[in-house]
Every structure is written in structure tokens, then in C-alpha cells.
């Protein structure tokens, strides 16, 4: 068999990506390479660190915005040295389990919540993040100050707007999917919400207060939510009504125990049966069998005689 290298080339390895994406990927690669080679914090890596912080840290931390689940990180490098911070960032659980007193104190302050090991964390990235936190700490108002939520009671209008956003009646500005497609709460009526994600009736209680819930929504960190909302984040004026809505649900108490789930199943079952009966009627003249009915018919006729 003769074969040329040309004929073995698999089609479309690089050619399928649009030019813009290729350019960005190239730039990112270049940035990574230059960071490793020269150890210089370039503009590109600062931007990357900010992006990383926004996506991975902001649901638990602020810089100058006060405590959420985790501590406020403003001037964190004045509390502990670089080496310790880097070690903690790379392996929070390991540091706590090693019996480090400060780490244990942190865990206590966070009411037992252990900081998860952030995927994609490396020594270089940890350094970049700490540089970013230092730089942001010096600013009067950091871009990571977090969501500022008023303490006063929410208005009925806020709750109603939150309900509409939850139900998808008001579309999300950044085209993210509406909450109801995966989640439900009490008192939605009809067939209730989606059952893919957890029931959110008590989410407010679970996340303890407005601030943590709001920050969580700012950059949802779970593995299912993160990829969905990374490129379509919620805006602050969408989060506030949602928080109001969830707070209202939590105050009502209880979980969604409506018969919607059974109803949904029964409607599906009934619909399937109806569709099949419909098909059978629409194609009632279709070919079924010839010989067997013919023989059976003849036998019946003979029986009558």
C-alpha cells in the first residue's frame, strides 16, 4: 500500500476556528509564556488575574467590602506573609489539617466552611492574585468591593420584579437562562419550576444573609452554574430583586411540596398516549400484515358455517 503524508492528514484541526478566536488564544499563550519566562507581571497577566478573581473568589470574598463567607481580603498581606498566603491558596484544606493555628482560626470565623481548592490555581497564579489584591487594597474603592445591598426591608415591587426575573418574564440583560428553567421555589403555581437544580425556597437561609447570596449570584461558583453564567453574568440590578424574592420565599417558610411534579409526569404520560393514538389514527391504513389476518378471517368464516 502506498500512502502519502498528505492523504493521512486529518481534516480541520486548526482551520475550523475563526480568526478572532485564534488571535485571542495566541495572545493568551504569548502572555503565559512571557510570564513564565521573565517572571514579569505584564498587563495581560494582571487582567487575567482580575478575571480569575471575579470568577473564582468573588462569591466568598470582597476587597474592602466586608466579610462574606470568607474574610475581606483588603490588606491581607499585612496580616500574613507572602509565603504563608501562597501556601494557603494552593492547598487550603491541607493547611488547615496541618494544624496551623491561623488557618484554624479562619475556619472558625467562616463557621466551619473550608475554602475549596480552586481549580487552575498555580504558584504563578497565586502570586498574580496576591499582587492584584495588594494593588486593589491601595485603591480607595476596589472594583472587587462586591455587591452593596441596602439593609432596609425590600419593597413589594422589588419582590415582584425578582419573581418575574426568576420566572423569565423579564429577560436577563446578558442573555443568561432564567432561573425557572432549572429551579423551583414555593408558591410558583402551575407546574412549578424546573427540577434539574435544587429547590431554592430556602436558599436565603442556607447562604445566611443578603450579602452572601448576592455575591454568590454575582459569580456562581458551582460546577454546574459556573459554565452557564461565566459568559452571561447577572447584573447588580437583577441580583437585588432576586435576593428580595429569595428572602421573601425564605420568610414564608417550607419547601415546594406542590403536586406539580406528579402533574407534570401525568401530563407527559397522557400526552404520549394521545400522540400514539393520534399516530395510529392518522396512519390507520398503513400496512400491517396480509397472510395472518387472511388465514384468521377464513378460519372465523368456517367457524360460522
Amino acid at each position, binding site marked *: 500500500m502506498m500512502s502519502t503524508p498528505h492523504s493521512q492528514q486529518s481534516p480541520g484541526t486548526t482551520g475550523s476556528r475563526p480568526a478572532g478566536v485564534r488571535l485571542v488564544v495566541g495572545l493568551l499563550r504569548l502572555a503565559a509564556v512571557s510570564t513564565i519566562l521573565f517572571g514579569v507581571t505584564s498587563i495581560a497577566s494582571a487582567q487575567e488575574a482580575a478575571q480569575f478573581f471575579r470568577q473564582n473568589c468573588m462569591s466568598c470574598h470582597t476587597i474592602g467590602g466586608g466579610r462574606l463567607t470568607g474574610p475581606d481580603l483588603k490588606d491581607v498581606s499585612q496580616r500574613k506573609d507572602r509565603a504563608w498566603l501562597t501556601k494557603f491558596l494552593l492547598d487550603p484544606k491541607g493547611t488547615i489539617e496541618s494544624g496551623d493555628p491561623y488557618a484554624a482560626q479562619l475556619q472558625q470565623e467562616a463557621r466551619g466552611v473550608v475554602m475549596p481548592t480552586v481549580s487552575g490555581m498555580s504558584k504563578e497564579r497565586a502570586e498574580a492574585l496576591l499582587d492584584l489584591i495588594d494593588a486593589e487594597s491601595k485603591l480607595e474603592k476596589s472594583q472587587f468591593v462586591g455587591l452593596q445591598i441596602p439593609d432596609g426591608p425590600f419593597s413589594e415591587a422589588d419582590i415582584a420584579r425578582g419573581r418575574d426575573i426568576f420566572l423569565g418574564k423579564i429577560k436577563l440583560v446578558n442573555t443568561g437562562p432564567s432561573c425557572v428553567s432549572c429551579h423551583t421555589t414555593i408558591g410558583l403555581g402551575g407546574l412549578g419550576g424546573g427540577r434539574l437544580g435544587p429547590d431554592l425556597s430556602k436558599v436565603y437561609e442556607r447562604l445566611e444573609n443578603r450579602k452572601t447570596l448576592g455575591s454568590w449570584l454575582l459569580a456562581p461558583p458551582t460546577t454546574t452554574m459556573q459554565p452557564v453564567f461565566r459568559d452571561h453574568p447577572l447584573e447588580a440590578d437583577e441580583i437585588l430583586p432576586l435576593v428580595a424574592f429569595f428572602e421573601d420565599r425564605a420568610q414564608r417558610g417550607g419547601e415546594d411540596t406542590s403536586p406539580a411534579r406528579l402533574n407534570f409526569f401525568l401530563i407527559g404520560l397522557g400526552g404520549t398516549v394521545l400522540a400514539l393514538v393520534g399516530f395510529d389514527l392518522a*396512519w390507520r391504513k*398503513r*400496512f400491517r*400484515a*396480509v*397472510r*395472518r389476518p*387472511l*388465514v384468521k378471517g*377464513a378460519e372465523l368464516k368456517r367457524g360460522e358455517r
Partner: protein
Amino acid sequence: MDVRSQISMVFHLDKCIGCHTCSIACKNIWTDRPGAEYMWWNNVETKPGTGYPTAWEDQEKYKGGWELRDGKLGLKSTGKRRTITNIFHHPHQPSMDDYYEPWTYDYQNLFNAPEGPDQPTAIPISMVTGEYLDIEAGPNWDDDLGGSPVYAENDPNLDGLTPEQREQLSAVERLVFFYFPRICNHCLNPGCVAACPSGALYKRGEDGIVLLDQNRCRAWRSCIAACPYKKVFYNWSTGKSEKCILCFPRIETGQAPACFHSCVGRIRYLGVLLYDAEQIESVAKRPDEELIDAHRDMVLDPFDPAVIEAALANGVHESVIDSAQKSPVYKYVKTWKIALPPHIEFRTLPMLFYVPPMSPVMASREGETVDHISDNLFHDIDESRVPMQFLANLFGAGHEAKVRYALRKQKAVRWYRRAITVGDVDMETAMRMLTEADCTVEEAEAIYKLTSLCTFDDRFVIPPAHREEAIQMLEDPMEHKQSVGFGFVARPRRGM
């Protein structure tokens, strides 16, 4: 005039003895393989009977063939739009039960069966599942009127017969049946070719044989539903459909197809017909009662200089025209008009013709007198045991005239020959019968000869295939000049 040549066939049903030698010859050569066990490209049916697959003529169920819709010719089973919507499930497929589940026997049981009060038997075993099988049907289950109350009584051709006529068919001592051998008709307007979404089926240009390209077939099975004669089969093992190929490898080497060659009753005739392809659509659109004449008119006179000129211009070889002039099929179909197409109302324009069978009442009895001759010379044509309407449904699109013409002519020829060889009827009556049956003495002699004294070469006039010319159309014969012959595939290595 678009003159083309078609290898056509005549089956003389008056000579068929229903021995199934043709079926076995075909089976042994072509369909004795995995996936093809249930196929009978050639089969012999008993009429009245439902045939194989069961009641294949009932197009209310099988949806085969063409129909006229608002003056347009369309397939019953599919159409341009329906081809797409039904592409993954064609709704009009016969099931295996409508053919039959092929079986063999567990012969080991004859030797291994435990000792008991009965003789051991070879137990039937399915060739599809390998399980023991309770046989319910076979390809010839109603042979010789077997299971008549079920099968013969449900023959679709019995439509339009009076209850008396139906009764008469199965009356004791008048019971009658005849045989109906079937192969692919290699139609001029084939439904299978039109239905195929992959273009795998085609009608061969040089001789009109309809073939199925095994490489292009994608097993959509539209052809199976579209063929009203149910002569395309799906091979479950290869995942391709198959059909009668008219033994083209034999035809191309000047031999008759296996079923023709092996025919014990010598009922089969094969020869070339020249036809006008321009007329196909318009003929297929004619009303039922005009179809037979229109179909016959498409067949052109191979002696007409205008036809010969047009044929030559169209690339038909001189030797093919020569074959057409000697064609026995031309004589039966066109000159004598005693061979008729089966179920031409399916509008596929079949190119296999049948000489309808005689089933005369040989004598009538009044008291003690047995009378062999009646005053009405053709009385037994209309009173024959197979009702004329039944034959008309099979060969005349429901109209009796053409069938009656064919039977009267056959009867006249018989009478004429009886006057000569036996001499118990007078020649004057015989001559009158010939005249009344639209037949001359020469024609009667010719019909008698080709029917009774035909040699191998009379029956099969096979045109030379001219494969050398066919190949020249596809590739340049000089292409490999100076590049083949003695040489090396790989360069020889010099030294050790």
C-alpha cells in the same frame, strides 16, 4: 421516435405443468445464500390462489405500482415528498410472515432421537432464528389448490365474479386451476426504479434488463413497496435489496436464463422487442381498457425501414435488429396478439407476456349421449371452467375482449390441427373457425409450430451482447497500451 431494444419474454401458460423446475434452477444459482433464503426470483403460483407473497396482487394493501392522480402518473406507495418523510420507515413493507419464514430440517434428530414409540422425524428449524419452527406458510403453500378455503378463495382476481362462478371454480368434478410462473417483468415503466431514493435501480440501456446496483443500494426498501409484482427482495444479511437479473451473465454469453433453459414444458420464449421509448409516459396514462392496445402499439415493427433507421441512429446494433426480426416474442405479442401482459392496470408496462391457458369443457352429456362438438364452435371459451372474468382480471385489466380474442385463436388453431392430424372434425368447420378467430391458415401453422414443435433456437433468440462496444463507452481500450505486459511490480534489486 426513440427506438430502444428490450429483451422480452413470453410464458405459454397452456403448456405449464407446474413442476417448479424453473424455481429450483434459479434458487440453486442465485438465492441459496444467507439473507436470500426466503427469496424466489422465479416462483410458480397456482391460480386461483394468493401466490407469494400472500395476495401480492391486492394493491389496496401493498400499494405497489402506479396510479393516475389528476392526470399525473404517481407511485401509490411513495412520492417526492413522501420519500423524504418516510425515508427511515417505509410504511408499506411486506413482513416476513407475508413471504414465509425460511426453514431447513434438523436431520440429526433422525439419528439422535431417544428411543420411543414413534419414528423420529426431521424437525423443521428456522433459517433465520435457528430455533425450532412451527411451519405456518411456505413460498408455495397453496400449490395445487392446497388450503383452498383460505387461499384460493381469497385470490384478488376473483373480484367481480358472481357467487355461482366462484362456486363453480371449486365445484367437485369441475374443479380447475392453472399455473402462473412469475419472474421480474423488466418493465418499461418500472415502479422500483422510480421509487429508489438512491438511484440504485436502473434499466440497462442495451437490453432493458432492470438491475439493482449493490454498491449504491442504501436499503431504503422503497423499491419493495413500489413493485406491484413484489419481485424486489430485501437481503437481511447484506442489507441490500436484490432482484431477478434475467441471468444477464448467461444472456451476455448467448445462453438462455436458467429458468428458461431448464423449463420442462418448454413454455418460455425469449427475444428482442424494439419499442418507442417516447411513448412510455403517454401509454402508461391511458385508461385501463386502452392499455393493452397502447402497450402493443409501442412495440415497433423490426422490418419497417423507418424503424430500422431510427434504431441504428439510436445506437442499436444491426445484429440486435436482426434478432428482433426473428423474435418469437414479437410473433406472440404483436403478430398473433395471443400473449398478454399480466396486470397491466398496475401501469408499469411489463415486458413479460402470458399466453392465457385453455380450460375447455371437453364434452357435454345429455342423457346417454356424450357430445364432443357443440353447434356454437366457441361455446367452451365462454363456458370454460376458469371464468373469463378471472382471466380478464389477470391479463386484461378487467376487460374480457383481449383475453377472449387470444383464447378463440388458440381454440381455432387446435381445431384446425385436429382436422388435419386426427380427422374426426371436418376441415370446413375448422376453416370457418379460423376465419371467425381472425386467423389465416399460414398463421395457424406458424402458431402450431412455435407452440408445439419449437426448438431451443426457436424459443430463445438472444441478441449478441456486444460487450466490447459497451466497454468502449466506459473506457479507452488503448489506455493500457505499452503499460502492461511482462515487467516488475517492484524494481529488482541488483546484487545481493
